[in-house]
């Protein structure tokens, strides 16, 4: 598998993502600057977390219009897998590659802690190494992670089983208390209609090695390697 990580001014999880991908891939992803207009031949494009363009105007809105994103959209339309984590998820909603929007957290606070996620689907290139219904522990670190979509859009996501992850408690129960940011239906990650684009607020790359305190995130990268190699 060949991968590229997009780097915007203000990205701060790009190198973590590079380490996590390298660990699973056995080779390094290409790091592609936001001002570039061409992508190398890749099977996966990863859009990292951080504060691209200082979150000016709206989180992800400036990055969505940077030169490289036209190329990302073009590759995505050809079926190249795209993974957006945290700010990367915000960028993908702002570009229109994923529906809905990430609003300010319900309690208005920046939330930075481990959360539990229920894996909702295991039939995607991002999640085949998990089992649907499995509970995993992954960190979140965001101020704007409150997923919102209109009722029709929400119904469509549910009908098409495009909710990839939901916030849950340790036992896997989807409760309001386990929802760190007020997201609609505890949604933590969603897929596009082709199931080749995933956006998620939690950071699997931050718990992808036992030395980091856990490796529940690693299966996401291993899934990609087995599907795209």
């Amino acid at each position, binding site marked *: 598998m060949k991968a590229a990580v997009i780097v915007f001014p203000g990205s701060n999880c790009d190198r973590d993502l590079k380490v996590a991908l390298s660990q699973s891939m056995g080779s390094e992803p290409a790091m592609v600057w936001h001002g570039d207009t061409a992508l190398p031949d890749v099977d996966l494009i990863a859009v990292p977390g951080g504060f691209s363009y200082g979150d000016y*105007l709206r989180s992800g809105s400036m990055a969505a*219009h940077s030169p490289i994103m036209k190329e990302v959209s073009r590759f995505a339309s050809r079926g190249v897998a795209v993974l957006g984590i945290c700010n990367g998820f915000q960028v993908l909603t702002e570009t229109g590659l994923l529906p809905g*929007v990430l*609003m300010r957290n319900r*309690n*208005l606070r920046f939330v930075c802690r481990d959360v539990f996620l229920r894996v909702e689907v295991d039939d995607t290139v991002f999640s085949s190494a998990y089992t649907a219904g499995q509970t995993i522990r992954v960190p979140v670190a965001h101020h704007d992670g409150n997923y919102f979509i209109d009722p029709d859009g929400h119904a469509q996501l549910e009908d098409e089983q495009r909710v990839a992850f939901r916030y849950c408690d340790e036992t896997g129960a989807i409760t309001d208390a386990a929802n760190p940011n*007020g997201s609609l239906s505890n949604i933590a990650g969603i897929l596009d209609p082709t199931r080749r684009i995933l956006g998620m607020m939690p950071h699997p790359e931050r718990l992808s090695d036992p030395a980091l305190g856990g490796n529940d995130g690693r299966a996401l990268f291993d899934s990609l390697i087995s599907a795209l190699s």
Partner: protein
Amino acid sequence: MKALVHITLKPGVLDPQGKAIENALSHFGFEGVRDVRQGKYIELDLPDGDHADAEAAVKEMCERLLANTVIENYRVEIVDQT
């Protein structure tokens, strides 16, 4: 001339910041505020010209960048500078 752009959350979209302001006003003793909705105000300095053309151009800017129309409405006002 100037374009004054008001961006507000659509009705029905939860506004936690507006809610926090509403609670703070109540703590300050200001009564009678039934609801607070927070938005953005953007001012654009434009060369003088036809107002309708300018309004159309600024609306395009709102659609493409200034507003996220999934959750936000916008209102554009073109005014001559004094």
